[in-house]
């Protein structure tokens, strides 16, 4: 009798196990069907659509940065024009006139002025659902020349709901030092990026971007000094650096001629720096002609392995570059755009102004003049005209 009960119990247990196995198999099959449907749908739904070339466009900008003893300002121009509806060419000219009396400069050298000029040329080509962008730029300062080339491909898939992008840049820099003709070095930079923008609903879209960055060569400043046992020595940085960054963005229409966006970026590199950036913004139309934007941004990072405010041992690498220290900064920004004239389908002219206030707080970088931790505020001003034609 007991044996029969045991046998029945075993049979029931076996039946339950088989039923569970069957349900699990069905769930797996349903999941596989959904996955197959999604992959098939993404590939099939692109159909016979075609992406448009970016609109013909021009921008004329005056920019100003002022903070921490540094003033950088200048004009910048951009003109974009399409040719035969297949190719769009863009030319950019950018000037940075820098007056530098930063804490590094006033404590170890003399304030100076210099000008950086940058020329860039790029071409966009569209074919069906793809856009290919090839760009080249060259930047000149008296002691630093940087040349850069890049290629980016974007592809619309899934009936235009998803935009996938791939890109690669290579930069090559020549570093010299004023007053030291014997000093000459170089740096090479590689960047590989991958991104996707996805329409979520008729009102919301999000994007995810990933970038791998690799640098090789002279990655510091020939003028900057580190402190070891209180004495000033030339900084010594590793000659390679690899970083990874991932950024997520979400933007949504709130339904009352207004929108909001939220962003987060995580960065880490082989110098042991980890950084987080977060931004929250709100945009709103005011009447027919005005568009206002406001945002708050927060950035925080940990210091590089070889960073030291005042090293108390001799190491292969040592730096007192405050960009590699532990610090955070918080920004508040606003932008206002005014549409001067708009004829739909023909042209549009806008006047724009933007302002950003930032406060930097350093956790392990001392102001050697006062002995207290360093901090400063900065302002960015942008005034520009933009036109679509």
């Amino acid at each position, binding site marked *: 009798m007991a044996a029969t009960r045991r046998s029945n119990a075993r049979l029931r247990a076996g039946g339950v196990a088989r039923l569970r196995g069957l349900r699990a198999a069905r769930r797996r099959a349903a999941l596989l069907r959904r996955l197959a449907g999604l992959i098939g749908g993404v590939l099939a739904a692109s159909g016979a659509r075609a992406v448009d070339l970016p609109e013909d466009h021009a921008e004329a900008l005056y920019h100003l940065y002022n903070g921490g003893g540094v003033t950088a300002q200048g004009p910048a121009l951009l003109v974009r024009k399409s040719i035969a509806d297949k190719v769009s060419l863009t030319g950019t000219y950018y000037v940075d006139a820098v007056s530098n009396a930063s804490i590094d400069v006033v404590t170890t050298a003399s304030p100076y002025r210099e000008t950086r000029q940058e020329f860039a040329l790029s071409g966009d080509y569209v074919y069906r659902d793809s856009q290919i962008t090839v760009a080249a730029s060259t930047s000149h300062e008296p002691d630093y020349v940087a040349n850069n080339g*890049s290629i980016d491909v974007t592809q619309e898939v899934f009936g235009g709901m998803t935009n996938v992008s791939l890109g690669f840049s290579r*930069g090559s820099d020549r570093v010299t030092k004023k007053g030291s003709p014997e000093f000459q070095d170089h740096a090479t930079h590689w960047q590989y990026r991958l991104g996707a923008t996805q329409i979520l609903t008729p009102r919301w879209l999000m994007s995810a971007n990933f970038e791998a960055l690799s640098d090789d060569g002279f990655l510091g400043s020939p003028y900057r000094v580190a402190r070891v046992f209180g004495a000033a020595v030339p900084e010594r940085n590793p000659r390679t650096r690899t970083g990874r960054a991932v950024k997520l963005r979400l933007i949504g229409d709130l339904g009352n001629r207004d929108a909001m966006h939220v962003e987060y970026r995580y960065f880490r590199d082989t110098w042991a720096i980890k950084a987080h950036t977060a931004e929250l913004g709100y945009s709103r139309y005011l009447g027919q002609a005005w568009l206002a934007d406001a945002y708050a941004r927060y950035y925080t990072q940990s210091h590089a392995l070889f960073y030291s405010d005042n090293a108390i041992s001799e190491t292969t690498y040592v730096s007192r570059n405050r960009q590699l220290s532990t610090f955070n900064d918080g920004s508040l920004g606003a932008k206002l755009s005014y549409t001067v004239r708009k004829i739909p389908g023909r042209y549009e002219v806008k006047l724009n102004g933007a302002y950003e206030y930032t406060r930097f707080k350093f956790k392990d970088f001392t102001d050697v003049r006062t002995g207290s931790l360093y901090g400063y505020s900065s302002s960015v001003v942008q005034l520009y005209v933009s036109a679509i034609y």
Partner: protein
Amino acid sequence: MKTRMRPAIALIAASALLGGCSMLPTFKPIEPWVKPYERERLADPIMKLSRDSLPEKHFEHVRDVREAARGATGVQGGGCGCN
């Protein structure tokens, strides 16, 4: 387990290649759920992730020379590595 998984993988690959065509009615592709005519709000300039390139480039440059983190901004790279 491995032998059971193989046909499933083959089936996914086949359906992906065929793009969910009518030969496999059970694997109905997921349709784009926001139709082109529903994307009017998304096309508004207020919804652009990046509106004007020069001001974006300027902000990127200002941040690149003061913060250690770089990349994944969606703004095309280039320019100087100057500090």
